[in-house]
């Protein structure tokens, strides 16, 4: 069981429970506040539960009845000895088996808000099936908080977690050097760890990461900056979470417009508008989907795949409201000038930006199923709104998570990250994950029982020659 006691002497933030005024101002500003998604990851006993508990507790996300229940259970189990205490792992360990065994089995989602932002926290357990859990949490995260125990420094496991985060292109990486109190808030000790972190992230090509000295137990630099680390001039963890840019919108501005068509809206008389307006919708036809990247405006030239026909956007509808432009991640319906044969699975993109459809691709797979993958296996892959049959034609290697080097492999086992070549039954406009996190990601699905076997990211579209360059 993870040590997780909250120190009642720790500085309490003004938004702590009971601070009704602070909560109200939070609620009042939240109407227009943004949503930020982050995941926590770390090894066993690095204090992740305590950190999550501290964030939730100090931002009023733990309400009185939940705290009562957790306190009662903690006391019944003798947590914290005679002095008592709260086992914050109980807040996120929601399943019976988890509480009985004192382990976290599955990703838990928690929600809290400050006066700047609302947060969705994917709490990913570190020890059981860590790749599966981290992949699940990281694919939807704007940021990942990686915990390091200050007494242990950078471990092999830290390198592994960071390499998963890099492959999945998580936009912001925060390394929280925890238990800094146990090192006497020593600057030199922290600097040594921060340097070691930067060495690893440099090796991984991760570029900049945010490193913060924290004590989840004592509350240092979690919500407020601590007077006990005067040598640290950066933001607290929460300040960082409140100010990092939300990625979908940033990438939207940088990437080309894409709309995978989920379905065609063609009511043909079965309309939900007032009878007087109904005739205007007799021939209504629009293509519904969620913008995955880029921005689209009325009047824009677009290309539709399959087929490659060009047309022009004549309208952008959002439930009865006409928009002049739309961007990721908005769910919209697009009207086009020409009557084209467009069905679910089609992709509408900014003119001239869509790749040529291909049946061949190379990919990295995060294998998540206990059944191994072997070359020749038939699977289903899901790209956007397309699910097609596929054959894994070859397993070309596996990432050694200790050395971070490619090693030869002929099959993939659970938690392996491997490289494969895939042949699709139908040509799709495949894009690389490096060019788009949304368009370059896919699921691998078992064709019979429907299990999700792997998370896939496209490394190259088309047939790859021996030199590694797509032909």
């Amino acid at each position, binding site marked *: 069981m993870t040590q997780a006691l909250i120190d009642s002497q720790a500085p309490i933030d003004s938004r702590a429970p009971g601070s009704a005024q602070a909560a109200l101002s939070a609620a009042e500003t939240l109407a227009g506040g943004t949503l930020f998604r982050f995941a926590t990851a770390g090894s066993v006993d690095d204090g992740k539960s305590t950190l999550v508990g501290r964030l939730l507790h100090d931002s009023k996300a733990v309400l009185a009845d939940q705290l009562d229940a957790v306190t009662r259970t903690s006391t019944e189990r003798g947590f914290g000895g005679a002095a008592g205490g709260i086992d914050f792992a109980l807040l*996120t360990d929601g399943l019976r088996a988890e509480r009985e065994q004192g382990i976290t089995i599955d990703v838990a989602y928690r929600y809290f808000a400050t006066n700047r932002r609302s947060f969705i926290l994917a709490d990913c357990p570190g020890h059981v099936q860590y790749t599966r859990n981290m992949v699940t949490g990281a694919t939807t995260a704007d940021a990942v908080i990686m915990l390091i125990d200050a007494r242990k420094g950078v471990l092999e496991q830290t390198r592994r977690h960071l390499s998963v985060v890099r492959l999945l292109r998580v936009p912001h990486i925060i390394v929280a050097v925890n238990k800094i109190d146990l090192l006497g808030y020593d600057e030199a000790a922290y600097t040594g760890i921060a340097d070691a972190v930067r060495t690893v992230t440099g090796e991984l090509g991760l570029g900049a990461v945010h490193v913060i000295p924290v004590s989840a137990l004592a509350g240092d630099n979690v919500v407020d900056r601590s007077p006990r680390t005067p040598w640290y001039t950066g933001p607290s963890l929460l300040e960082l979470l409140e100010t990092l840019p939300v990625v979908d919108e940033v990438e939207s501005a940088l990437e080309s417009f894409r709309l995978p068509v989920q379905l065609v809206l063609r009511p043909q008389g079965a309309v939900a508008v007032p009878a007087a307006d109904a005739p205007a919708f007799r021939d209504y036809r629009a293509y519904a989907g969620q913008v995955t990247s880029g921005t689209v405006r009325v009047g824009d030239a677009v290309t539709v795949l399959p087929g490659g026909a060009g047309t022009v956007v004549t309208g952008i509808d*959002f439930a009865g409201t006409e928009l002049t432009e739309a961007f990721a991640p908005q*769910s919209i319906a697009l009207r086009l000038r020409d009557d084209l044969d467009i069905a679910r699975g089609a992709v509408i993109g900014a003119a001239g930006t869509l790749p040529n459809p291909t049946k061949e691709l190379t990919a990295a797979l995060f294998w998540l199923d206990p059944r191994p993958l072997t070359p020749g296996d038939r699977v289903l892959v899901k790209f956007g709104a397309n699910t097609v049959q596929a054959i894994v034609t070859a397993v070309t290697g596996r990432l050694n998570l200790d050395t971070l080097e490619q090693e030869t492999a002929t099959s993939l086992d659970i938690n392996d990250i491997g490289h494969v070549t895939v042949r699709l039954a139908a040509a799709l406009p495949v894009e690389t994950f490096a060019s788009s996190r949304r368009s370059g990601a896919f699921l691998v699905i078992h064709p019979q029982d429907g299990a999700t076997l792997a998370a896939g990211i496209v490394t190259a579209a088309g047939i790859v020659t021996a030199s590694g360059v797509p032909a």
Partner: protein
Amino acid sequence: MRTPPVNATDTASPIRATGTHRLSQLDVLESEAIHIIREVVAEFERPVLLFSGGKDSVVVLHLAAKAFWPGRVPFPLLHVDTGHNFPEVIAFRDETVERLGLRLEVARVQDYIDDGRLHERADGTRNPLQTLPLLDAIAAGRHDAVFGGARRDEDKARAKERILSLRDEFGQWDPRNQRPELWNLYNGRHTVGQHVRAFPISNWTELNVWRYIEREQIALPPLYYAHDREVYRRDGMWRSVGPVSMPRATETIENRTVRYRTVGDMSCTGAVESDAASVDAVVREVALSTITERGATRADDRISEAAMEDRKKDGYF
């Protein structure tokens, strides 16, 4: 004291803000929910929406209407009626169905009690009895996808459930064997006999729901707002006086100004004292609340730490 993060040590991120964010959290959550609803309608043969007239299912129905505008919502509604529902909620349910021109299927717990397939519990609560009529209705309607308004912030077990949650032919949830849910790619594959529960507002909080009701001016049953009611105190909650929830000899009836934070079976749903008679007043009250909505109002969730998980494993919502 909070100063902006100047000199964020190692924080020269490659991704920088390109200006203020254009989408509020409600916009993002709304688009996410519409995407999920459209995905389920596109991939499944016979979806159905569990609709009780409660605020969460009302919000899901509103989102569905937006997802398919200007067309009609392309699936029917299903209500499992415990026979202990608030009459004003049933009236609201029927008005809503009529207004939107939808089809409503009703599965009645009372029918099952009458013919002996279910037995009344000693505590009089009918919430756990809903599972069998629900599963029968899903089977009879051959529904392969069942939309629900459950949210992950409601309960610890729900916090671990996927947005698309696979159920076996007994309707059971297997929390230890869930599919990983990756990016915004939802895997709806299922085999004969299995079905999927779909929760489009998984990521919404109670406050998000109320903010959205306020923004979209969504109508709700009147008992969500403060009103005078004859109540008595039991288990720390205000219970409404009614045919299935009579006070014991030791409990006194009082007239109080109350509202309901959740609307369920009358025999186990409590009211809270409140002056919040309008949607903006409710938003303020929810923001200030120090107790969760289920903790405040649901006796059945107090049975044990794992009450919800146990019901879900048996096929409950």
